[in-house]
C-alpha cells in the first residue's frame, strides 16, 4: 500500500473540512480525487504531504505515519499544490536545482536533466519562469514535484487553467508517470478522471460518497452519463 488513510478528520474552526475519511491506495495506481469545490480534496492532500496535520485519524504514506515521521514521508512524496506556486523571477534550471537541493537529491545535475526530459521542458529550460506560458509553468510545477523520483505523486488540480491542447499533453505526461508511480490527483472534471485514472474517490462535504473504479461507477446507474452520476452524488448529500 502506498497510501493508507484511516478515519482522517480535519477541522477549521468549527467546520469539518475533512470528516472521517478512510481509503487505501495500492502502489502503482492512478487515483482521481473528485468533488466540487470545498469538498475537502485539497485539505486531504495538504495532510498527506505533511503541510498541515490532521485533527484526528492516521495517514500512512509509503509505510510512514505522517503524525510521527513527516520527514520520511516528505522524502518519498512529490507535491504539486493548487494554483502551482512558483518563483517567477527564477530561471527554470535554477529553480529545479533549488528543488533538487531541497529534496535532498545527491546527484542534482542528472535529477534536473531527468525531470526536464520527463516533462518535456527542454525548449524552455533557459527561460525565466515568469516568461513561460501557463502550460509550461504547469510542467515546471510537475518537474519540481518529481525531481527526487518520488514513489508517490500528489497533484492538486494539475490541469486547471490550461487550454485543451495543454490539457491533453499534461494528461499524457501524468499517465506516463503513473506507469511506475502511485499518483493521487484532484480535479472537478469528470473527463479528466476518465482519461487518466484507474479509480475514482468522490468527495462531498469532507466525506467519501463513492470509491470505485470508473466502470464500477458507471454500472451503478448505467443509463446516466458520468456527469449526471457526479451531480447526483454530490448535490444529493449536500442538500440533506
Amino acid at each position, binding site marked *: 500500500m502506498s497510501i493508507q488513510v484511516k478515519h482522517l478528520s480535519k477541522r477549521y474552526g468549527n467546520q469539518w473540512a475533512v470528516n472521517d475519511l478512510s481509503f487505501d491506495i495500492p502502489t502503482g495506481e492512478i487515483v482521481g480525487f473528485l468533488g466540487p469545490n470545498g469538498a475537502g480534496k485539497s485539505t486531504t492532500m495538504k495532510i498527506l504531504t505533511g*503541510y498541515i496535520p490532521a485533527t484526528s485519524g492516521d495517514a500512512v504514506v509509503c509505510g510512514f505515519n505522517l503524525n510521527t515521521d513527516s520527514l520520511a514521508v516528505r522524502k518519498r512524496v512529490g507535491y504539486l*499544490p493548487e494554483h502551482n*506556486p512558483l*518563483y517567477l523571477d527564477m530561471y527554470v534550471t535554477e529553480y529545479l536545482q533549488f528543488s533538487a*537541493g*531541497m529534496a*535532498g537529491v545527491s546527484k542534482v545535475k542528472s535529477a534536473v536533466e531527468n525531470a526536464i526530459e520527463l516533462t518535456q521542458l527542454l525548449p524552455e529550460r533557459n527561460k525565466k519562469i515568469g516568461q513561460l506560458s501557463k502550460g509550461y509553468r504547469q510542467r515546471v510545477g510537475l518537474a519540481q514535484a518529481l525531481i527526487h523520483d518520488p514513489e508517490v505523486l500528489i497533484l492538486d488540480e494539475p490541469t486547471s487553467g490550461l487550454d485543451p491542447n495543454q490539457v491533453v499533453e499534461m494528461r499524457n505526461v501524468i499517465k506516463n508517470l503513473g506507469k511506475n508511480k502511485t499518483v493521487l490527483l484532484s480535479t472537478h472534471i469528470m473527463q479528466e478522471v476518465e482519461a487518466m485514472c484507474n479509480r475514482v474517490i468522490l468527495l462531498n462535504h469532507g466525506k467519501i460518497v463513492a470509491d470505485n473504479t470508473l466502470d464500477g461507477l458507471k454500472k451503478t446507474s448505467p443509463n446516466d452519463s458520468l456527469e449526471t452520476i457526479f451531480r447526483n452524488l454530490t448535490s444529493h448529500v449536500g442538500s440533506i
Partner: protein
Amino acid sequence: MWVVFKKEIRSFLGSFIAYIVMGVFLIITGIFMWIIQENNVLDLGIASLQVMFNIAPYILIFLVSAITMRSLSEERRLGTIEILTTRPVSDTSILLGKYFAAVGLIVFTLLPTLFYYYTIQQLADPLQGIDNGATWGSYLGLILLAASYASIGLFASSLTDNQIVSLIISMVLCFFWFGVLSLLGDVKALDVIGKSLEWFSLDFHYQSISRGVLDTRDIVYFLGFIASFLGGTKLVFESRKW
C-alpha cells in the same frame, strides 16, 4: 539550510532592492562621514569612525528591514511556502537559512566601510593612531545590532503576506527596541523603572560593546534577543499547524 541560504542570496542579488539598499547605506554614511559641515571627520579632527557608528544604527533600521521584508511574506503571497514546507527539510532549517542569508548580506554591505577605516588610519597623526579596540568593538556591536534587527525583520515578515506591511512593522519594532527604550532611561519621572527598561534596549548594549570592552553580558543579551525573535518567528511560521 544552505540550499535555502544560497537561494536567498541569489534571489536578493538578482533584485534591484539589493543594490539600492546597499548604495543608499554607503552614500548616507559617506555623506555624514566626510561631507556634512562641522560634524565630519575632517572638521572634527578626531581619528575615529564614531560619526559612522552613531548614524549607522538608524540607517540599518531601514536597510535591514528592506532586506528581510520579503523573505517570508513573499513565500506566503506566492504560495511557494507550501512547496518549501513539504520538502524533507525542517522548518527550523528553512528559517535559519533565510536568517543567515539576511545577516550575510548585511555584513557584505558593511564591508566597503572598511575603506573609511583605512582612510582614517592613513590620515591620523601619528600614522595609524586610530583606536583599534573601540573600532573593532564598534564593528562587532554593529554586526550584532544588525543581526538583532534581522531577527526582528524575519519575525515581521512571518506575520503578513504583504511586503510593505512587513517593512513597516519591522521598522517600528526596530526603532522601539533601539531608540524608544533607551530614551526611557532619560525620563526623570520613570526613575528606576526607566533605567531598567533602558537596560533592555539594543542601544544600551551597542554602546557598551562600542567602547571596545567585550562584556559577556552584552553578547548574551544580543544572542538572547536574536533567539527570542527567531523563536517567535518559528511560532508564527508553524501556526498553520494549529
